[in-house]
């Protein structure tokens, strides 16, 4: 485990997940997916997926290309409403028709194809869709101060100026902006699709550190990754998808790389029945 010092926020929920059996007192996981299915015409991208995402922990979603990982998170983010199935948020049944609906619950998503506007600066991107206003006009000062505060607080990277166009940033910096954007809006769940796929070694380390920091603040993190090294570095829980189904899910301590690879490549359904 990579749990760093002073991460009191994550210790409690971690114990909670180890507890087995009916527990009246413990709150339900932040997000619960039940029987989620999604069809694209004849393609069945998701078939009956059940998944719990607890607060204060990093849940890694792994699986081969085309397993349905991106489709699953897009269902949670309100991009592709599921064909069937139920989504529970803090125990309540919710429907997520639009990105806005998901956002209002506190779900922030950092997409594989980064959803940033290259022609806008860092501050403008951080606040896109949530602009601070004063007397009906944009309050640039507040937005700039707050952006600087958040970037400093996450202390992951440095930029020349927060008024720099996002189009002029490096891949790692863009990823960090996308993550910081998610954090700033007081999200309870941050979803990241392949956050380190396009990054070099140093930048990857920075983003992983950022992920750990989010979880230690009590935020639930759901991260998709192809890189098992990364997964075993940051994840508290692991969820494996295979051809549109969720084959296994559990604390990372129950897995090693060999077992994970086996699940990814074969689906190894035997354990699921048991």
């Amino acid at each position: 485990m990579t749990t760093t010092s002073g991460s009191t926020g994550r210790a409690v929920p971690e114990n909670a997940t180890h507890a087995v059996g009916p527990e009246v007192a413990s709150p339900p996981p932040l997000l619960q997916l039940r029987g989620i299915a999604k069809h694209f015409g004849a393609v069945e991208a998701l078939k009956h997926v059940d998944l719990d995402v607890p607060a204060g922990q990093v849940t890694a979603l792994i699986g081969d290309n085309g397993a349905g990982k991106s489709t699953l998170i897009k269902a949670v983010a309100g991009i592709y409403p599921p064909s069937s199935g139920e989504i529970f948020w803090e125990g309540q049944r919710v429907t997520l028709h639009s990105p806005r609906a998901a956002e209002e619950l506190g779900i922030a998503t950092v997409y594989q194809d980064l959803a940033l506007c290259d022609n806008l600066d860092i501050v403008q991107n951080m606040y896109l869709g949530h602009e601070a206003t004063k007397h009906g006009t944009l309050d640039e000062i507040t937005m700039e101060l707050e952006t600087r505060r958040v970037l400093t607080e996450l202390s992951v990277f440095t930029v020349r100026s927060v008024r720099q166009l996002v189009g002029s940033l490096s891949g790692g910096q863009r990823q960090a902006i996308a993550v910081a954007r998610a954090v700033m809006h007081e999200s309870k769940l941050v979803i990241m699709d392949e956050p380190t796929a396009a990054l070099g070694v140093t930048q990857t380390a920075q983003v992983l550190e950022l992920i750990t920091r989010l979880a230690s603040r009590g935020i639930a993190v759901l991260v998709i990754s192809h890189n098992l090294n990364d997964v075993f570095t940051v994840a508290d829980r692991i969820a494996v998808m295979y051809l549109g189904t969720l084959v296994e899910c559990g604390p990372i301590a129950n897995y090693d790389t060999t077992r994970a690879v086996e699940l990814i490549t074969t689906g190894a359904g035997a354990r699921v029945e048991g």
Partner: protein
Amino acid sequence: MTSPEQTVTEKRAESATAQGVIGSLWGKVRSGEASLLPILFGLAVLVAYFQVRNSVFLSAGNLTNLFVQATIFILLAMAETWLLLLGEIDLSVGYVAALGATTAVILLDAQFHWPWYLALLAAIAVTTAIGLLQGLIIIKLRLPSFIVTLAGLLGWEGVLIFFVDRQGTGGTIPVQEKVLYDLVNGNLSPLATWIFTAASLAIFCWSILRKDQSRRASGLEAVPFVVTLMKVAALVIAGIVLVLIFNTNRGTFTVLRGMPYAIPVDFVMLTVGGFILTRTKAGRYIYAIGGNPEAARRAGVNVDRYRLLAFTLTGVTAGVAGLIYASRLGGISDGVDGGNLVLLAVASAVIGGTSLFGGRGKIIHAVIGGMVIASIYNGMALINMSAATQFIATALVLLVAVAMDSVARRSTASR
């Protein structure tokens, strides 16, 4: 924990020197962030050339004429800017403007005799409705704006010819009402010219100073105070020079002085347009959609609503442009070349620095670009160049502008 904060502070200190400002300027020019500089330089070269060839060019009379000539290009380019920012285009804007003007002149004639303000409002209402309608078709049916407004280019010309010819005044409806006629042909008194300019300068300078002041007060990176002062001084000098030009007697038989009403019209449109684009959420979203519509959608922006707003604003602006057009020509005819107008409108916006690819541009670009186009036409006529040369020169300027647009786009895209 302190290291990023320190870095930010150091960088702020560095860029606060005048040298840092100039150094970063070149980078901005190349990436298209400071797109005004090259074109202002180009305009200065044009002006110098024409002045050397014919000293009438910089006379008060000709300059005033030039400003008035530019107004129609400026306003149509502003109309186009709303859509160019989205990566869309409106090919019909020339005929839509003319149709608005037709509405006004018909409602003002002996038959209807509407009060001028209602007739002018009706003209703008018509163009706004057309903008809205075209926007709805484009958005709801998911059709390319290029095609729908190409249909508009043909269709609205038909409607224009129908209404103009139905008047039975020989294919032209003259402007006989004083206010509409004066829009271009009337002038503020010299005193009013001073007052208007001083008031505009005061508002602009106050907003520049206030912005810098509040940034500094909040501990944010701001340009050095000297630079702000230089900006303000440049504006004041430009304003005074303009007043002196407009207030010089340019009449031959009678005294003719003062700022043509068309200039305050430009100014109001510039200020309102600039305000919407830089100070409101709507403006921010127009840029965002032009840069990355999917990102805007995922950020929760109602993309269709703001696209529709842009089409509507194009309609409003086209309405104002049409009134200026009718006033300048003293009427509206069934032979209006709306196709040529729209080409010059797009050319003006792009020459000024607005990108054809969406997401980058300003309302002020329409002003600069319109001035460049008007200078070419005005200057070439003064030095007796043929129409053929005028067309070719405009084409070359447009090519250069588009090439610069493309370079700027690539330099930001490639990071």
